[in-house]
C-alpha cells in the first residue's frame, strides 16, 4: 500500500511530464490541439493529486469542501462561459483578462499566507526564504493583475493613454513606485502588516504605470510579457506553498513566455527594452517629422474602378492587417474572395508574422471566416510571387507593406521584414485616411505609380466592392 504522499509525488511527476509535452506540442500545428488537451488533463490530475493526498493526510474538513466547491464552481463556470461567448476578434483582451486573474490568484495566496498561520506550521514567524517568497509572489502577482487589467481595458477601448503619461515624467513616477515597493518589501520582511498592504498597492500601481503608456501594436508584446510574469508569480507561489510542481510549471511558463515575447519583438523589428521604455517613441517621431511626412502624388480611386481592375485580374493577393481586424471585416472579405474565386480568379492571402491585433491572430480570424488554410501564405512563401501578381489588395495594413524597410537604411523601419507588394502590377490600399501607421512613419508605397488609395472603412469598402463585383457579373464568368 503506497502512502498518500507517495501517490501525490508520482501524480505530480506525471503531471509535469504531460505539461512539458503539452507546451512542446503547442508549437506545432498538427499536434497543437491534442497538446492543449494533454495540458488540461495534467492540470486536472495535479488537482486530484492534491485532494487525494490531503484526504489521506489530515483529511479535508466539510467547510473546506464547501469553499472549494463554491470557488471552483463559480470561477470555472464563468471561465467556461467567457471562453465560449467571446468573439475571436476580442482574443487579445480575453487572454489579458485570464492572465490578470491568474496573477490575482497568486497574489491572494501570498497575502493569505502572510497574514495567517497555516495548519501544521508554527505561528507567524517566517524564515528569510519564506518572507522573500511571499514578497516576490505579492509583487509579481499584483503587477500581473493590474497590468493585465489595464491592457485589457486599453484593448477594449475603455481606456486611452492620458497625454502626460507619454512624457518622460512617467519614468519618474514609476521609479517612485519601485522605491515604495522596496521600502514596503523591507517592512514586510521585518514582520509588519502595513508593509504587506503597502507592497500590494505600490506594485499594483507600478503595473498600471508600466502598461498604461504602451499602445497599439506593442500591446500583444506586453500581454505576452505579462503572461510570462504570471508564470513567475505561480513559481513564487510554489515557494510560498512549498510545491515543486508549481515551481516547475511556473518556471516553464515564465521562460516560454519570455521566448515568445522575444519572437514577437523580432517580427516587428523592435527590442523588448524599446517596447517597455520607449512606448511613446513612435508618437514623438511622427510629431517631429511632420513636414517630411507629407504625401505628394497620391492617386485615389473609387470602389468601382477597383472592382473593374479586379475583374480583369488572374491572380489577386489580399494583405489583411490590423485595420481589418478592428473593422471586423473578415467575413465580408471572405464573401468578396468567394465571388472572385467563382469568377476563376486565383486568390491567396499574404500573412505578415505580426498581422492582426496579435501575432497569429489574423490566421485565427480568417480561419473563423472559413478561409481555406492552404490559401494563407506566410511572408517568406508569398514574397517571390508578387511580381506575377495582378492585383494586391491591402486592407488596413501599413507598416508591414512599407518598402522603406528594404530600401532606406535611414528609416527606423529598416531591417523589418516586409511584404513586397510594390512588385505587383496594381496595388489597392484600403485605408480610412492618410494617417500614419503605428510606427508613425510615412509609407512610400502610397506614392508609387502602381498604387491607388481607396478611402473608407475596410468593412464598408469591401461591402461596396462585393456589390460592384456582382454587378459586373464576375461570379458568372467561371
Amino acid at each position: 500500500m503506497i502512502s498518500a504522499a507517495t501517490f501525490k509525488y508520482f501524480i505530480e511527476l506525471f503531471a509535469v511530464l504531460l505539461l512539458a509535452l503539452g507546451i512542446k506540442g503547442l508549437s506545432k500545428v498538427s499536434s497543437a490541439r491534442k497538446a492543449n488537451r494533454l495540458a488540461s488533463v495534467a492540470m486536472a490530475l495535479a488537482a486530484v493529486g492534491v485532494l487525494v493526498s490531503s484526504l489521506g493526510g489530515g483529511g479535508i474538513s466539510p467547510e473546506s469542501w464547501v469553499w472549494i466547491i463554491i470557488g471552483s464552481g463559480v470561477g470555472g463556470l464563468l471561465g467556461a462561459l467567457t471562453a465560449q461567448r467571446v468573439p475571436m476578434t476580442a482574443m487579445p483582451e480575453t487572454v489579458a483578462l485570464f492572465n490578470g486573474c491568474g496573477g490575482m490568484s497568486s497574489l491572494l495566496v501570498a497575502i493569505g499566507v502572510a497574514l495567517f498561520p497555516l495548519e501544521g506550521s508554527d505561528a507567524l514567524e517566517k524564515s528569510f526564504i519564506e518572507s522573500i517568497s511571499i514578497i516576490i509572489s505579492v509583487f509579481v502577482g499584483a503587477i500581473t493583475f493590474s497590468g493585465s487589467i489595464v491592457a485589457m481595458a486599453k484593448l477594449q477601448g475603455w481606456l486611452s493613454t492620458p497625454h502626460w503619461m507619454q512624457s518622460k515624467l512617467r519614468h519618474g513616477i514609476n521609479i517612485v513606485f519601485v522605491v515604495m515597493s522596496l521600502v514596503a518589501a523591507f517592512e514586510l520582511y521585518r514582520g509588519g502588516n502595513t508593509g504587506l498592504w503597502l507592497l500590494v498597492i505600490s506594485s499594483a500601481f507600478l503595473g498600471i504605470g508600466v502598461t498604461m503608456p504602451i499602445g497599439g501594436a506593442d500591446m500583444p508584446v506586453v500581454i505576452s510579457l505579462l503572461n510570462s510574469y504570471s508564470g513567475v508569480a505561480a513559481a513564487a507561489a510554489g515557494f510560498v506553498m512549498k510545491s515543486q510542481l508549481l515551481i516547475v510549471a511556473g518556471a516553464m511558463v515564465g521562460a516560454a513566455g519570455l521566448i515568445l515575447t522575444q519572437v514577437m519583438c523580432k517580427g516587428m523589428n523592435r527590442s523588448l527594452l524599446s517596447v517597455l521604455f520607449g512606448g511613446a517613441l513612435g508618437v514623438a517621431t511622427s510629431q517631429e517629422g511632420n513636414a517630411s511626412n507629407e504625401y505628394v502624388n497620391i492617386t485615389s480611386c473609387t470602389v468601382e474602378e477597383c472592382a473593374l481592375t479586379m475583374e480583369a485580374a488572374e491572380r489577386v493577393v489580399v494583405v489583411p492587417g490590423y485595420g481589418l481586424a478592428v473593422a471586423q471585416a473578415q467575413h465580408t472579405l471572405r464573401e468578396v474572395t468567394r465571388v472572385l474565386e467563382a469568377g476563376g480568379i486565383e486568390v491567396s492571402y499574404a500573412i505578415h508574422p505580426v498581422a492582426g491585433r496579435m501575432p497569429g491572430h489574423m490566421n485565427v480570424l480568417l480561419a473563423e471566416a472559413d478561409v481555406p488554410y492552404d490559401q494563407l501564405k506566410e511572408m517568406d512563401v508569398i514574397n517571390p510571387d508578387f511580381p506575377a501578381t495582378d492585383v494586391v489588395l491591402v486592407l488596413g495594413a501599413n507598416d508591414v507593406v512599407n518598402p522603406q524597410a528594404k530600401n532606406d537604411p535611414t528609416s527606423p523601419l529598416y531591417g523589418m521584414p516586409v511584404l513586397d507588394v510594390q512588385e505587383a502590377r496594381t496595388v489597392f490600399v484600403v485605408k480610412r485616411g492618410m494617417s500614419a501607421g503605428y510606427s508613425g512613419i510615412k509609407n512610400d508605397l502610397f506614392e508609387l505609380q502602381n498604387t491607388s488609395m481607396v478611402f473608407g472603412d475596410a468593412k464598408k469598402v469591401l461591402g461596396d466592392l462585393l456589390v460592384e463585383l456582382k454587378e459586373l457579373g464576375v461570379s458568372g464568368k467561371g
Partner: protein
Amino acid sequence: MFSFSEALWVLLLGSLLGLELIGKVPPTLHTPLMSGANAISGITMLAALTLIIKAGGNNYLLLMGSLALGFALFNVIGGFLVTDRMLAMFSRKTNRARGKRS
C-alpha cells in the same frame, strides 16, 4: 519533503526546459500558444486548494483561498477552452484541405 536548495534546482531546470520547449513556433500559433501557456500559469489553483485545506477553520483564509481558487480556475478553464476553440478552427481547415486534395 521540501527543501529550499532542491527547489532552486527545480526552478533552474524548469526554466531551462521552458526555454528549450519553444524553439521554433510558426507565427500562426503565437496566439494559441500564448493563451495555452496562460492557462497553465493558472496552476496556482493548487496553491489555493492547499490554502483552503490547511485553513484550519480560519474564515479569512477560507474566503481568500476560495477567491484565489475561483480566479485561478477562471484562468485555467477559460484559457484551455478558448485555446481549443482557436485550434479547432485550424484543424478543421487542414482536414478539409486534405480531403480536397485526395
